[in-house]
């Protein structure tokens, strides 16, 4: 029997040389005349081990990593096709602690299957949610999603079922499902991983959303910085169309649903749902005032569901296993699982899907293993560029929408970026303002002007010019931005800025003047 070797095609693996490793393996198979073939799977999310090569053996899948092209002949010499010992061997993949401790619902297949094999998708439980959905009344689908407690994973945490209900109840000639795949937050990559590693689950989730709300057309708006995700999604949509999952009769039912990929053009603000809609319509990605809600007047003025990739990709498992199964995970009003993205200066970076409720300290120390540099952790930014910086003193905060809000933070898209003690928090606060200035759509004044004034004022503080007065000014400015901005870009930029000031006051104290040159 031919042996299967898995080499990921995920962008993180590619960035670490996976293509060269796959080519080296192919060469070795050829040269040694072996009966083996390479499958390009998604990533398991153990990114410090990428490229993570797996071999399917009688004893399960065995992991080797991180593999460099030069390691490949040695792996064959060590008999890795039968799970032979080697310094890069980590035993059975699913028993690696980082993976064994996870609850993989949304990411159940990611890294396990060939992302573009529909046979693999079905074999590992795919399409069961959609098969159930086509037999249900639309309102019952909405009810199940509502009962599951699923909240928008893009950051706002709005209950997905309620959004769907609004679109379902709206009457219009046509409605849309828009998937927000403009994953621009630094520290996040879950959307990218699912699109590259299990694209059919997103297609399935969007088709279910379409049937539930009466929408017949879907758009996935993917940022241009993700060329691999764009290519994989486009290929998967073609496969799904040919298999009758998309088209006039979804899975042979009377429901019509089709979708296409649209590519962004490098504007961070297009991750905000109304500016994303303007961008899809071919306009400047300027934020719209709400109301009207996109659920009532969204894309081209029609009722539109705008959901994040992970929200939509979590729907199939809910329709498959039932809302109670999903709801059983989590705490408080944060139900189900959340794919944590552990990034930055960490020993074990990657994707960790788990029920809500872990403490930040457990995530940073037990799971991420502390910093990559081995220095003490100074700060953790949770939720991307608009998320607050948490000091170790607040590491008892539980990962939950409300618990983070109570400490002036947000979980956002669940990206966790760790900084060691060399980080300069004034510099980080300045960057937050600078980033807001670069990416502001320009519609509202607090964001457009406030961000630039913020950079200037923080520069004055760094230069030791009236630091007390200027710190008060920054706090006042942040207050204006927080309450006066139209969207989360201007409205949330104060989170990283004020958390840096409040938790790391020493970094904002007058600096030692460099010794005079003459």
């Amino acid at each position: 029997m031919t042996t299967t070797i898995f080499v990921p095609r995920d962008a993180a693996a590619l960035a670490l040389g996976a293509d060269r490793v796959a080519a080296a393996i192919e060469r070795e198979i050829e040269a040694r005349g072996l009966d083996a073939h390479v499958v390009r799977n998604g990533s398991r999310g153990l990114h410090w081990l990428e490229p993570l090569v797996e071999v399917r053996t009688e004893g399960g899948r065995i992991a080797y990593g991180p593999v460099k092209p030069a390691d490949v002949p040695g792996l064959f010499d060590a008999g890795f096709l039968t799970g032979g010992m080697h310094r890069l061997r980590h035993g059975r993949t699913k028993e690696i602690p980082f993976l064994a401790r996870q609850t993989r619902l949304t990411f159940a297949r990611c890294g396990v299957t060939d992302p573009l094999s529909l046979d693999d998708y079905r074999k590992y439980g795919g399409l069961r949610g959609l098969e159930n959905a086509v037999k249900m009344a639309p309102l019952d689908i909405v009810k199940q999603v509502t009962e599951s407690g699923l909240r928008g994973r893009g950051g706002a945490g709005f209950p997905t079922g309620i959004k769907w209900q609004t679109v379902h109840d709206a009457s219009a000639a046509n409605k849309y499902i828009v998937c927000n795949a403009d994953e621009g937050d630094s520290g996040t990559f879950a959307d990218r991983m699912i699109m590259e590693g299990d694209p059919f689950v997103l297609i399935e989730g969007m088709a279910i959303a379409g049937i539930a709300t009466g929408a017949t057309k879907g758009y996935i708006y993917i940022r241009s910085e993700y060329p691999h995700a764009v290519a994989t999604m486009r290929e998967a949509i073609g496969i799904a169309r040919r298999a009758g999952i998309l088209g006039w009769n979804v899975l042979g039912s009377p429901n019509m649903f089709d979708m296409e990929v649209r590519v962004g053009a490098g504007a961070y603000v297009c991750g905000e749902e109304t500016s994303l809609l303007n961008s899809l319509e071919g306009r400047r990605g300027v934020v719209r005032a709400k109301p009207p809600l996109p659920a009532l007047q969204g894309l081209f003025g029609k009722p539109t569901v705008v959901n994040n990739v992970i929200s939509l990709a979590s729907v199939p498992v809910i329709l498959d296993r039932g809302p109670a199964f999903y709801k059983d995970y989590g705490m408080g009003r944060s139900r189900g699982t959340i794919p944590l993205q552990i990034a930055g200066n960490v020993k074990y970076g990657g994707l960790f899907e788990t029920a809500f409720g872990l403490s930040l300290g457990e995530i940073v120390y037990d799971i991420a293993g502390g910093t990559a540099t081995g220095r003490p952790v100074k700060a953790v930014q949770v939720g991307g560029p608009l998320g607050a910086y948490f000091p170790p003193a607040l590491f008892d905060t539980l990962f939950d929408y409300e618990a983070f809000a109570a400490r002036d933070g947000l979980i956002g898209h669940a990206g966790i970026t760790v900084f060691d003690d060399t980080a300069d928090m004034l510099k980080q606060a300045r960057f937050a303002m600078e980033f807001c200035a670069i990416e502001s759509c320009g519609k509202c004044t607090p964001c457009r002007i406030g961000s630039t004034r913020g950079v200037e004022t923080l520069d004055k503080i760094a230069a030791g010019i009236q630091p007390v007065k200027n710190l008060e000014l920054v706090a006042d400015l942040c207050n204006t931005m927080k309450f006066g901005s139209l969207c989360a870009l201007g409205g949330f930029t104060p989170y990283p800025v004020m958390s840096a000031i409040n938790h790391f006051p020493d970094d904002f104290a007058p600096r030692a003047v460099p010794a005079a040159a003459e």
Partner: protein
Amino acid sequence: MLQTQSTQIEARTRAVIADNIGLEGPLLPILHAIQDEFGYVPDESLPVIADALNISNAETYGVVSFYHDYRRAPAGRHVIKVCQAEACQSMGSDRVARRIQELLGIGLHETTPDGRVTLEPVYCLGLCSCAPAAMVDGAVHGRLDDDAVEALVAEARG
């Protein structure tokens, strides 16, 4: 008969528009296709697009100028995008960007005088768990150390 460069651009622009005009909200797909065709969005294309979509020149210009991706002039033969967002910052992306600038002798948003390499900052490539990261002509690179940076720059210049 010789075609002038600008009528050639107009003809090629019309062909690109014809391929995309059937889409809902076709402007961004058209602009992406124009940039793929020419390497940038030429001034000559804008009135042709405005005319085809029945929108004003100002609206078309407004869209082109809003998005960071659209170039108004050709880039160098190779484009290095070095990530400068928070996760990469935590792993020394400042230093990586400085080193690339030293090696190329240019700043961010600049092109080498020989037209070989353009250097740009990018805010997140989704490679935050293998920072610092960069993209060269669409190929991704993670965990950049000094050697990797030098190899990457040498290849782009090569």
